[in-house]
């Protein structure tokens, strides 16, 4: 069953405070968070969070199309090293 709309999206309060502080400082520091369950809100767009995966903080730059997802979706807890072959990386 999905979450009731009247409750609004769930976000741990410390994440909101840290994001607010980062926005006010104007610096593009990595905001370390442990809350994988928090929802990504529109005010997080443009910030970079270090989302804990149980071992280290994975840097996640928030973009518009991530809104509504959870932070944990972008910080996998298992690492897979495949072959490089012809795979490409794009510098944004």
């Amino acid at each position, binding site marked *: 069953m999905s979450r009731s709309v009247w409750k609004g999206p769930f976000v741990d309060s410390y994440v909101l405070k840290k994001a607010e502080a980062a926005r006010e400082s104007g*610096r*593009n*520091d*990595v*905001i*370390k968070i442990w809350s994988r369950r928090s929802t990504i809100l529109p005010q997080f767009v443009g910030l*970079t969070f*270090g989302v804990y995966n149980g071992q*280290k903080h*994975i*840097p*996640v*730059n*928030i*973009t518009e199309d*991530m809104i509504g997802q959870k932070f944990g*979706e*972008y*910080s*996998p807890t298992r*690492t897979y*090293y*495949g*072959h*490089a*072959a*012809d*795979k*490409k*990386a*794009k*510098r*944004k």
Partner: protein
Amino acid sequence: MMQDDRIVVGAISGAYGVRGEVRIKSFCANPEDIETYSPLTDSEGRSYDLAILRPIKNGFSARIAQIATKEDADALKGVELFALRTQLPALPDDEFYHTDLIGLEAVDTGGEALGSVKAVHNHGADDLLELLRPGSSATVLVPFTRAVVPTVDLEARRIVIDPPEGLL
């Protein structure tokens, strides 16, 4: 894995059927592309002309011109298939092959060594470079963006990283 100017693009995982067809496991971003790099070679330099026949579970069934029987196909189980780096098509600016990035030395804007690129990941957000820190087995992930990685010099085999506070 990279050997000289060759890159692993797939592997033979055994025989398929009894008519000398082989099972191919492709490591390419688009699995069907393995056929475009044919003829492929193995680690000892033997050449294989590969033609994909159909997709099967966990790969493709394929015909190799030099293989006629199931016994020959069975004998090739586990053979890694290599393509030449020069066979990969050229990429636009700001796009790089993982194979080119892996192994590059990373330095900060002051020239201090930060490690070497161990792997490239993408977890759904930006691409991430995994740096192996010097003198340690610890790794750190760095977003592959123009702001954080302003310089990628493939000729000099190094990248310059301008890490934001809290990243390293």
